[in-house]
């Protein structure tokens, strides 16, 4: 069902509008509230019951994944239709029905690298939010150097046997399944890695949440002890996992630089200029009284503006078919700096009001700003450190050489 012209597209728009009007519950048309986000899965929680109705209806229609093939439960829409659907959802301020690493990262990779049976088995449950996935990548000894991973995966004839440890596994304690990089050949580095899937309820899997400096625990240390995995759960060819991994890192990096950061903005927090005006005060012409702080806030706000113009420029140029180079690393680096600068300025402008941890005596927005300031420190580490991004830019974009 591919519309080829504007008229047909308008037809689709009306159809989508009508369907959304009929199926999107009114409470799903209000701004998202942190604790009503739906992650799906076997143990899905729905604080607002409407969010279950909304997920089920969208999942059924395949519109949680509008462009994925109908064959695997997706929406089967063209790129143009998907954009129209997005516009129509934005028009009524519909919430996203599902947050999911399956939708954002694993699904696209499986559609590209998996076989037909695997797609049939796993994709529909991602679309419907029935299975919650987590990503088993980093290891204690392999952070920036991901390919240095050591989790062993041995061929035991009728199954694989997995032993090792992952770290920074997002929500591993809440996920149903894991997509995981494992070592299937120790004699070589990148060419000895495979990509495998297994159930987190398998015997021998243990996920321990890591407490972060912000007080949250979104990540786990995940231990695998003699975990048996059926052989049909290997994706792609044996020792061919690194190609899938690289592709997935691209999905991750661009979803992060597109604003998917933890610690970005957030409701209830004002800007550093607002806090500075309030807490530092203004002079007789309405300027922030501390000229030095004011200059740094202005500098930051210019950086933010320049960043958003850059995203816009790259989008326009890409649409116009112009080469835009390795933009993900650039945006990832700049986004991390921007978000961290923002939160440092917030804390500085807030003064002692920004030094609270919890409880009474502090403004709620300020408490949130403090936690997000701590959270933002991860922006230059997760999904490729800023140092790695600079290396990538220097070598791949600028063509600077390695030591010989």
């Amino acid at each position, binding site marked *: 069902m591919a519309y080829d012209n504007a008229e047909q597209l308008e037809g689709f728009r009306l159809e989508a509008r009508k369907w959304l009007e009929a199926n999107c519950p009114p409470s799903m048309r209000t701004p998202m509230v942190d604790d009503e986000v739906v992650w799906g899965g076997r143990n899905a929680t729905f604080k607002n019951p409407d969010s279950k109705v909304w997920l089920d209806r969208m999942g059924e229609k395949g519109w949680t994944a509008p462009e994925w093939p109908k064959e695997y439960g997706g929406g089967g829409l063209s790129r143009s239709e998907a954009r129209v659907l997005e516009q129509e959802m934005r028009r009524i301020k519909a919430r996203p029905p599902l947050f999911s690493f399956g939708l954002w990262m694993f699904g696209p990779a499986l559609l590209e690298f998996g076989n037909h049976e695997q797609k049939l088995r796993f994709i529909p449950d991602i679309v419907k939010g029935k299975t919650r996935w987590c990503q088993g990548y980093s290891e204690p000894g392999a952070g920036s150097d991901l390919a240095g991973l050591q989790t062993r995966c041995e061929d035991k004839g009728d199954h694989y046997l997995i032993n090792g440890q992952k770290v920074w596994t997002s929500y591993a304690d809440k996920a149903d399944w894991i997509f995981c990089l494992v070592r299937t050949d120790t004699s070589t580095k990148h060419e000895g890695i495979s990509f495998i899937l297994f159930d987190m309820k398998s015997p021998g899997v243990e996920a321990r949440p890591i407490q972060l400096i912000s007080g949250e625990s979104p990540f786990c240390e995940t231990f695998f002890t003699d975990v048996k995995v059926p052989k049909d759960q290997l994706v792609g060819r044996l020792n061919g996992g690194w190609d899938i991994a690289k592709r997935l890192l691209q999905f991750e990096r661009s979803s992060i630089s597109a604003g998917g950061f933890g610690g970005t903005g957030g409701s209830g927090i004002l800007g550093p200029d607002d806090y500075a005006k309030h807490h530092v005060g203004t002079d007789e012409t309405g300027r922030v009284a501390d000229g030095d702080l004011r200059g740094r*806030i*202005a*500098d930051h706000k210019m950086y933010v503006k320049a960043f958003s113009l*850059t995203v816009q420029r790259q989008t326009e140029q890409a649409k116009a078919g112009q080469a835009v180079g390795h933009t993900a690393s650039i945006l990832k680096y700049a986004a991390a700096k921007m978000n961290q600068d923002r939160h440092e300025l917030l804390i500085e402008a807030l003064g002692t009001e920004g030094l609270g941890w919890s409880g009474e005596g502090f403004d709620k927005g300020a408490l949130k700003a403090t936690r997000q300031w701590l959270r933002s420190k991860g922006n230059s580490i997760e999904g490729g450190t800023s140092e790695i991004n600079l290396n990538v830019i220097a070598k791949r974009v*600028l063509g600077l050489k390695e030591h010989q």
Partner: protein
Amino acid sequence: MSFVLTEDQEMLRETATAFARDELSVNHLRALRDAGANGKDPRTRQKLAELGFFGVIIPDEPGAETFGLTGLGQILEAQGRTLAATPLLQTALIAATALQLGGSPAQQAEWLSKIAGGETTFALALDESAHFAPYSVATEAERNGQGYTLNGLKKYVPDAHHADMLIVVARTFGESGDRHGLSLFLVPRDAKGVTIAELKTVDSHGAAHVTLENVMVPEDALVGPADQGADILDPVLDRAAIGLAAEMLGSAQAAFDITLEYLNNRKQFGQLIGSFQAMQHRAAKMFIDLEMTRSCVGAALAAADAGKSDVAELASLAKARAGELVHLVSNECVQMHGGIGMTDAADPGFYMKRARVQEALYGSASWHRDRYARLNGF
């Protein structure tokens, strides 16, 4: 907003880039300097006229399309790449804009075609101190029977040492610092009472202090209504800042390019200096800044052409960021070239010298940060 050039603009960009590369190289500037030209280059002016570069924002007939400020920005970026000294910013941008915004039909009829043809060049005589402060004008224009009498001192006026005409910002009301009370006047450079004190400047482009002593101009020398010159001046200065930012982007890009080339060729300790990670990270950060500044300049050019309400904000954004960029890149260009970078025979020093002039004209980064903050209400 469009960041994508039209086909016409793209062709203009290519022409301008090739022209700057082939005929206005840094060596051309070096030769002019050594010959004592101090930025005066009639042959280049002639060529620019032949290429039609003076008229890119002037419609052939009323209402006709032009290349727009975006088109002119491409030319200025190209001349920034090679640090070329041309009358384009003062004449093709500033004077053309001022006359289009404020000129009477008679003034437009007389001057716009002369600008487009490269017959007449202009210089905007504004600053009276060493720092950009557009309303700090004490130069007086007093009404007399037939017109006005001008008295005052204008400092560091770019192109005034070779332009044919001056656009003088003078005060017809109020006091230095007031926005109200400014008026713009067209004054021939050779008018009686005008003294041009040529300045030898660090960038070899030259400039002049201009003294006006009982300079008599007729009534019709006034551009736009008396006392309300700031309504013309403000948008002109925003566009001047944007055009200069485009030039600065070109300079920064070129300084970065020659640095990158050096990093990939020069060896120390048996290794290319560009293979040292500390150098790589510094280069990568500069590249990110370059990309982000390019977006700001593009957005500001497009906003000016679309007549958007945020031109002032984007002008300050572009000029401030371009200022910081060209400052950083020109310093790194010298440093990464090591001793070679300190020699007059190499190009890095030329980029550094021109950068400080670019930074100072039409508002420093500090000035524009302040204005950006004011426009954003803090």
